[in-house]
């Protein structure tokens, strides 16, 4: 049976298609989230890539900030539940997951069986999220995707002390005015996100193995800084952005089987 998970975030839509709850058939991503045709595009892409038509999909589950806005879904599940399921699918035995998305950050504890046992979300604030990185990249005339490469070339880390995105913006500008090297600044920006999220993780408790999910997981600069801050290795999968969609597809498969 094919199950489809669609993760509708604030800035992106991600989807995954699973066969029999154990084989990834396709994944798709569009840089268009809530209120756009991103989710429909992702579903179309999944069908195209897997050479299936809609009628062959047994169950569809939506998740993410925009989960209620996808009427075709059979179930709607919170993104934390889905990220936990998806992470456990990729990394069985995982005990802590840090998800940094476009708008918020979440830390999830899992028990040995892969069930969520605790979670914490950041407090309605852009600091420590993908949004923070986007804003900072904008000031430095970089693309968010270039930040990790820049940070890797830093000679030292220029610390950013403001946690608030707006204040951090002026801080970065004043550092630039003082002639601070851009690469060192980028390293400081990555570290700022890492410490912010790291302290959230410490509130939940950090038990290894630990993995990261969400778009920011792709940023090696943040990953490295977070690993140093927490003193643990961080598992990374190139599918990190699809954990939500994968978990949604998995949830659909499991729930469908239970109910039928």
């Amino acid at each position, binding site marked *: 049976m094919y199950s489809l998970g669609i993760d509708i975030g604030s800035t992106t839509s991600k989807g995954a298609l699973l066969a029999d709850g154990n084989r990834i058939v396709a994944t798709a991503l569009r840089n268009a989230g809530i209120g756009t045709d991103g989710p429909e595009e992702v579903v179309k892409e999944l069908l195209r890539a897997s050479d299936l038509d809609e009628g062959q999909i047994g169950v569809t589950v939506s998740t993410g*900030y925009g989960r209620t806005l996808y009427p075709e879904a059979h179930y709607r*599940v*919170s*993104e*934390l*539940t889905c990220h936990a399921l998806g992470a456990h699918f990729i990394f069985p035995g995982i005990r802590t997951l840090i998800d940094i998305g476009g708008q*918020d950050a979440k830390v999830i504890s899992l028990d040995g069986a892969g*069930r*969520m*046992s*605790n*979670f914490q*979300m950041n*407090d*309605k604030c852009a600091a420590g999220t993908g949004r923070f990185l986007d804003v900072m990249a904008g000031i430095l005339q970089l693309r968010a995707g270039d930040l990790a490469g820049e940070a890797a070339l830093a000679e030292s880390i220029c610390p950013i002390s403001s946690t608030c995105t707006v204040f951090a913006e002026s801080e970065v500008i004043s550092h630039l005015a003082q002639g601070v090297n851009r690469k060192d600044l980028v390293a400081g920006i990555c570290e700022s996100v890492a410490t912010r999220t790291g302290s959230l993780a410490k509130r939940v408790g950090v038990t290894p193995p630990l993995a990261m999910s969400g778009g920011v997981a792709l940023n090696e600069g943040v990953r490295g800084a977070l690993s140093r801050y927490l003193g643990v290795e961080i598992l990374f999968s190139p599918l990190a952005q699809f954990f939500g969609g994968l978990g949604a597809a998995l949830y659909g498969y499991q729930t469908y089987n239970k109910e039928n």
Partner: protein
Amino acid sequence: MTNQEILSVLAEAAGNPKKQLHHHLSQGRKVVALAPVYAPEELIHSQGFVPMGAWGADLELQEAKAFFPAFICSITQSIVELGIRGAYEGIHAMVIPTLCDSLKVLTQNWKHAVPSIPLIVTSYPQNRGIPAAQDYLKSGFVQISEKLEELGGTPFSEEALAKSIDLYNRHRKAMRELSSTLGKHPRISARQRSDIFKSAHFMRKEDHLELVEGLIEGLSDQESGGLPHRKEDGPASRTRVITTGILADHPRLLNILDETGFHLVADDLAHESRQYRTDAPTGGAPLDALVERFCKQQHCSVLFDPGKGRASYLADLATRENARGVIYFMTKFCDPEEFDLVPVKRNCDAAGIPFLSIEVDRQMSNFSQARTALETFKEMIEQRRM
């Protein structure tokens, strides 16, 4: 009255405190407002006033900002905002206790921001277990009584106070009984439960007691309580939880609890059940009984509790009520509650009780994060069942 009719009267009172105030005034009654968390209500009642709770309101702060830094809890700020906007016009006094730092600040700000309404400050002893605390509290109550008399109240009378204590004890007993009855009735929504408790702050206790007793009787009659199924899902699938914190009365938040499928089977909110846990003893001198009642109160963040007994109290309450989780509504910038959060969470974790804390305040406009957290919490609890 049917259960549904009683619930509508209580909802109407909970949603329209101003209307209640004007009703009291139009009946020629004198009203005294009570800021959180505790007040010697029986004393105020016995001297001929209607005590009305003033726990602020969900509104945008404008005028109050001139009096408070941003990091003071929005309950106290909204009380000043309402005061400046004239919402309390007609009342005889505002009673403010000094139970937390924000409330201490509120006493001073009230004097300056709302000079037209007299302030009565109630000071409580920290260490309530020693005889000196009782003497201190009693002398404070005597001063309040004198002040009430100056404000047009009837002179202090032991007989009248004994009667008021009796009424308040009956009301407290009824509220405790109602709370446990509601634990058996998943068809009563979180919103309705909140309305029942909230309306108690605005109505005369005599009137509220009558309605609550009627509701208890009506609910015990039939399993369904004569109430319709809730539309969102079958009551069987509701997840039993208890709530704790200072207050959680925002309609949108309550609706999310309902839509997500929670059944609030008991609470430890200062605004709700904490008001009703402890009775005043009867038989002795009534003023001593009021003092004793306050000194006996326990498990509250604003009452000195070196052993943090609230943590085990909550775990026991959850177990007794067969609750599957504890939701801690953390009022933003409330330091007494922030201090308690850690021991409460640790205790729940140790007891294997799922625990969620959600930040709330009187300025909430975006509820999507609260919704996600509550939905996830429900899913987490359900996963454990599998």
